């Protein structure tokens, strides 16, 4: 049995608070926390993956790509807004943004 909010009774819980499955962070929607939004700008991006490393929610999605010289590499494909919580770390750490001439990640107020 579960209550009107879908919460389980004590008998249904695994013991000791164990979560008996892996990878279920994917089910957790942190996108609802967002009040500021990073917008990835494909044209400015040099695919250094710094944003992907720093993102605490794993919101950056990668794809296979090639360097200008034709070597295999991973590239940014998009931001998954189901998980992006708008913390702004990516925009802060992006080396293109840091140089200041142009932007690879824009960080803007969520529109109402």
């Amino acid at each position: 049995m579960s209550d009107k909010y879908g919460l389980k009774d004590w008998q249904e819980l695994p013991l000791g608070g164990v979560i008996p499955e892996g990878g279920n962070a994917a089910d957790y929607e942190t996108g609802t926390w967002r009040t500021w939004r990073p917008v990835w700008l494909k044209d400015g991006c040099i695919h250094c993956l710094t944003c992907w490393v720093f993102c605490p929610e794993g919101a950056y999605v990668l794809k296979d790509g090639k360097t200008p010289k034709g070597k295999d590499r991973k590239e940014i494909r998009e931001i998954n807004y189901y998980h992006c919580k708008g913390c702004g770390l990516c925009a802060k750490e992006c080396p293109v943004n840091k140089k200041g001439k142009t932007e690879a990640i824009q960080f803007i107020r969520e529109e109402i």
Partner: protein
Amino acid sequence: MSKFSAITGNGAIAEAMRQISPDVVAAFPITPSTQIIEDFAKFAADGKVDTELITVESEHSAMSACLGASVAGGRVMTATSANGLALMWEMLYVASGMRQPILVAVVNRALSAPINIHCDHNDSMGARDAGWIQIYAENNQEAYDNMLMAPVITEHADVRLPLMVCLDGFIISHSIETMQLEDDSKVKDFVGEHTAYHALLDTDNPSTWGSLDLHDYYIEHKKGQQVAMENVIPVVEEVSERFYQEFGRKYELFESYCLDDAERVVIAINSVAGELKEVIDEVRDAGEKVGLLKIRLFRPFPYAEIAAALKNCKIVTVLDRSTSMGAYGPLFVEICSALYDADPRPMLYSRTFGLGGRELLLNDIRDLFEESKRYLDEGKIEKRSYFLNVRGG
């Protein structure tokens, strides 16, 4: 073949640990439990156990390492006393909350200050609310037997809770007594294989341990723990019965000594029960109906069973070997709770004794029985509670 040996209480615990051969022992030795880990470290060094022995830098780390190893999927044990148990405190609650069947041999010793290495029960009694099963032992035989039963109790599917096997520091831990050690293979069969529950090292089936509960789930998890504790009572009865079938020594939730027709009953924990039995035999020979109820399982506390066992008695003396400063001793409080609904309710009073190893001699116990006789004859309790054998009264 089981054999009679002359061995110390600590030695007996170490023997039990050798026979069980747990996956991991993490320990930081402290008097008077030191010999347990010394002996066990020798077994490990000599290849007599398959155990991973982790020597850590504090008891907090010892319990943390035990917890990690248990969650990883191992059968895990340690031993400690007094201040060592106190330093484990934080992790005791984590272990029970995470439902890890960790075993600790607690060699009871007084807590500082003043520094004192001798026996009382303030260490384990202080941990009585930590969600651990607590089983107490009168002598080295019982301590050993309880160790053998402990993994079977803790790992039972209805239980899965950590457990303390408690024995008196020095009085039992350092005394050689004749006792019966069981055959290694029989012990192995009795204890059985460890079954892990969502082991972290089972990487094919990943799990997360130690996550957060807010007001949405915390109390449901605590309810589960409470029910598991209540389940301990039938499980202890069942495992004790199996132990009796296998090894021939009978244990119950508590021991009843000359209790059936007793009018005056003393209730006590651990080694003092031996002295009490000795004096009870004398007093019985003189025709007095006296008896002993010796606590074995203190957590969970078998309220109903104890109330039933005391239904014929007229006066109860509770001996606490620990204090709850500013309150009655922990055992007395439980006995009062157990007897609240009793009709008629026996007269009840409390005596605290033995703190920091202060002896209680046979004559002191004779005096106790004199006192209970007087109280019963006069129909009133003169002093509800006081410390025995204290200079200045």
